[in-house]
């Protein structure tokens, strides 16, 4: 696993992800949210955690360390927030003391690289519009708040196999729906990029990727 910092600056929104007491949260604070909390909370507490986390993480400078002491909200002093910052995207994991800090930093890198591979040059809009896919990818890495797999190739193999299955199930019946949503997406100025639905792909050049 290599630790490399990528750059991505075309994002308008912020995103962060969080592993909460052996668990993750993904957060996009502006209009949408993707997160997973592996210890069930009620909706209000969840939202509060996300707000607080985002507040803590977003006000930090570029050149400070990637660790934050956990407040009471994320389960006391034994837990800490570990985050990585890619342009406007924050990936935040909240872990307890049994996890290795640098190990988690590597894990975030693996996650981002995996997203990049699965979405073919991931951009923020991919994460926004395909929350479910992000979840499915994450499910192959972390299960119930415990790290399941750290090998990127293995993760991609499993994700691809499942997508293939989904496609074959949709078969003929899926085609009209795919066409419609491709058409819908074509008309949208807000969706400048390919979101990989069906065979129609609209590539927009000059978007820097994670790597």
């Amino acid at each position: 696993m290599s630790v490399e910092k990528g750059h991505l600056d075309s994002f308008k929104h912020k995103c962060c992800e969080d592993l909460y007491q052996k668990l993750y949260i993904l957060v996009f604070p502006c209009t949408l949210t993707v997160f997973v909390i592996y210890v069930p909370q009620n909706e209000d507490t969840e939202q509060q955690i996300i707000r607080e986390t985002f507040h803590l993480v977003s006000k930090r400078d570029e050149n400070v360390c990637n660790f934050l002491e956990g407040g009471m909200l994320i389960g006391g002093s034994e837990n800490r927030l570990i985050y990585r910052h890619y342009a406007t995207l924050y990936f935040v994991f909240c872990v307890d003391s049994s996890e290795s800090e640098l190990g988690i930093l590597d894990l975030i890198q693996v996650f981002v690289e995996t997203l990049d591979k699965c979405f073919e040059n991931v951009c923020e809009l991919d994460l926004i519009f395909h929350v479910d896919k992000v979840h499915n990818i994450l499910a192959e890495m972390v299960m119930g708040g415990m790290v399941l797999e750290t090998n990127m190739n293995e993760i991609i193999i499993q994700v691809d196999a499942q997508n293939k299955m989904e496609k074959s199930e949709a078969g003929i019946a899926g085609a009209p729906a795919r066409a419609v949503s491709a058409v819908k997406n074509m008309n949208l100025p807000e969706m400048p990029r390919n979101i990989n639905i069906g065979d129609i792909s609209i590539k927009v050049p000059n978007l820097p990727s994670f790597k």
Partner: protein
Amino acid sequence: MALKIVKGSIDRMFDKNLQDLVRGIRNHKEDEAKYISTCIDEIKQELKQDNIAVKANAVCKLTYLQMLGYDVSWAAFNIVEVMSSSKFTYKRIGYLAASQCFHESTDVIMLTTNQIRKDLSSPNQYDTGVALTGLSCFVTPDLARDLANDIMTLMSHTKPYIRKKAVLIMYKVFLKYPESLRPAFPRLKEKLEDPDPGVQSAAVNVICELARRNPKNYLSLAPLFFKLMTSSTNNWVLIKIIKLFGALTPLEPRLGKKLIEPLTNLIHSTSAMSLLYECVNTVILCVQKLRILIEDSDQNLKYLGLLAMSKILKTHPKSVQSHKDLILQCLDDKDESIRLRALDLLYGMVSKKNLMEIVKKLMLHVDKAEGTTYRDELLTKIIDICSQSNYQYITNFEWYISILVELTRLEGTRHGHLIASQMLDVAIRVKAIRAFAVAQMATLLDNAHLLTGNTQRNGICEVLYAAAWICGEFSEHLEEPMATLEAMLRPKVATLPGHIQAVYVQNAAKLFATVLRGQEGVPADSTVAQETSQLLIDRLPLFVQSSNLEVQERASCILQLVKYIQKLQQKDVEVAEEVTALFAGELNPVAPKAQKKVPVPEGLDLDVWINEPPSGSESEDEGRKSKGKAVFAKEESRHTKPRYTEVDEKELAKRREVRKAEQANNPFYIKASPSSQKHSVSKPNPSPSFSLRLCHTLTHLLWMPMSDQYVKLEEERRERNKADKKKKKDKKKREKGEKGHRRRGDSGPESEEDITPAHMVDIVTEEMPENALPSDDDDKDPNDPHKALNIDLDNCPLMDYQVVVSVIFENKCDSFIKSMEFNVLDSLNSKLQRPDGAGPHDGLIVPFQLPPGISNEARFIFSVQNIMMPQKLKGTLTFIVKTDDSSTHEKLDFKLHFTCTSYLITTPCYSDAYSKLLESGDLKGCSLKLEGVNQPFHHLLARICFHHHFSVVERIDSCASMYSRSIQGHHMCLLVKTADQTVSIDAKCDEPGLLGNVLDEIKLTFSQC
């Protein structure tokens, strides 16, 4: 058919999908809530349709809305529907939704058990995969119990993808259902050596997680992990193993030595910084190396260096202390995380020598700090540092009090109560400091307006609570009691929170007593004393009007008291001594756990009402109790006086008499000497109002940092001490003669022991009952799920007990039955014993065929671990029915009911052995009454013997003793008595759970006849 599908999906095109929803929300930023509520209405419509694709789409959108913080629990049943779809696409959506929305209180989870079990055994590995992933998020104790066996089977699945998920989820199952740990552990251990690295990593993960909580149970695995550590190349696994060893080494010191070599190898060979860090962390060899980390420009390494440092601090404090400079430097870091870490370190580093210096540094930071969170953190740390181990490091308490006073100047801190409790604690426990503390507190009270800028939100006014209490309680130390009294009764006080006002009022009374004594001691005109009373009478009505009951009650009590005193004063009666007596007696600090340690006297039931609670006034009483923090129990007991009512003087006098009588009987009060009452000599007093103003301006001047002065003073004092010592030394040397070289200059750094405290401080320790140890571990959280997992896996072998079940098969049809296969779904507790080589789900072949009308018996052996509870096992019998021209395959479902009785074996027992058994006292009792039994007594006994496997030990008339034994050797004794249709059974057994269940079954037997 195909057309229908296509038509369905054409309809579907016009429903919003997830992307449309996201887009819609982004386009409706202004009226997002409204937009979403229309979307939810649409979703509700979609959920009503039969088409599963539409439903799945709706559920997918709901999942997204749940993430936005909307409650979607109403759709829980629809989620289950989508989960049970046969298509993977929908199933995955369903499980994702379930993992986001379900929690333990979701009631539909109960409905999912069978669906999940079906998915777990699905031939498609991804069906199993999503089921496992989903289950890992919402597993409940019930699910864990029902599915543990299925998941355990999956741990040996042929596909590594399933194996690793099954292994990992076992941790969640253990947490919810700790009984599963023991049977599952051998297999888990086996998985540590799985050929697939992913499975191996999952197993290491689970075991590390278990071992972290209860390391001693896993010591025996050390060799296995040792092997893994030297062979594995997966950094993630290595880090986990090294962390595990970190937890094991304290328990087994020899392990440490063994580990050094492989760890140093790893340190030298690895290129991964993360692994290196963990190695260093575990070995904790080299503090110097850490210094390099901390000095590194990379903030991450700096942070981790500090983290590791704090771990070393616990074992080798000396070596860390030498890096004090570096750590203090880190306090200036721009990164808050690093500053907090450094603070943490400082806590462990202080000594008598450097405490003042460190705190001074911290105080500087407090002044500079931006952002209240960090400042509050600093404040708590300063207090923690100073108060740790019973103020061990504080040599000068005057300095500490002045630090506390300085801290009160912080604006907007939330920790006012913390400072307050420190002030109280110090003032009570350090007797020598009281005079100084009282002077400081009086200043604080006088300047209260500075603290209470914006009263309600400002937590700092809590400090006034402590200040008022200290001034009142130790008022004999006050130089200007009158001034303080005046300060406490200013109208502005009424804006403080209620519980503080209450303390003000109460302590004003205490002060009043002191003031009176001072004034009456001086022979002059009595008007001064009367003026003091008048002051109270003027000011107290303000508090009587308070909306806070506590304040109101205390104020009105005291007001009446003062009015009465004033009347006495007007008659030239000297009252001071008697008033003082109201507040005599010293309070001692009591340890927080002391009450718990006092044994409850025999015959006292704390749960029983002493008087039946009056129905009406209950809520009011509660309200009063909850208001006003009671710091000292004694203070409370003083104030159970009647509430304020208009009373005439006679009444008052009467009450006074009653009270005096009460006081005489109360050990807390010192009786007033009767002689003082009639002697009345008026004493003069210097004009209070004049001196008051002067004092006011003076205190303003004093309102500046003082702790610095103390630091300086302290340094000087130490220098002096040192000089004194040196003089003594020099003297000695001189006396010895000036032969040798006389050493000049500094005598080197002073050692810890050289520092003598400024004044003899006697720290009063808290009162505790004699037999109580402060370290009793009643702080442990009984709800910690990991406690249940503390199961010794090595010493107790699995206890398997066998039960033979005879099943009679009878063919009631006219056809020939053959190829019968008997199968039971195992539970964790009970398993059908199958021949070697058979899988856990294979059925057993019944070794005979049945012609029509014939019956035959077959025996099956079950192994049972826990016999305390009755059990039901589900099973199926498959067979082939052969008629003349055809044969059909048939299936029959059945349930096997294992009652607790079935675990009992009829065992004869002799009466002397029986009575010995009863005398031993190991057995716990339970009894049962059956009414309306009109059977002869011997029939009744026969029934119990036959149905419940007991034997009669002895029978005398209508009374009999019976005995039985369980397959695990529990003794069970019954004493059965009968008298006109009522049968009473007294039972004793060494296992109350089993006994209870057997009695229930006996009851059932008799209710059926």
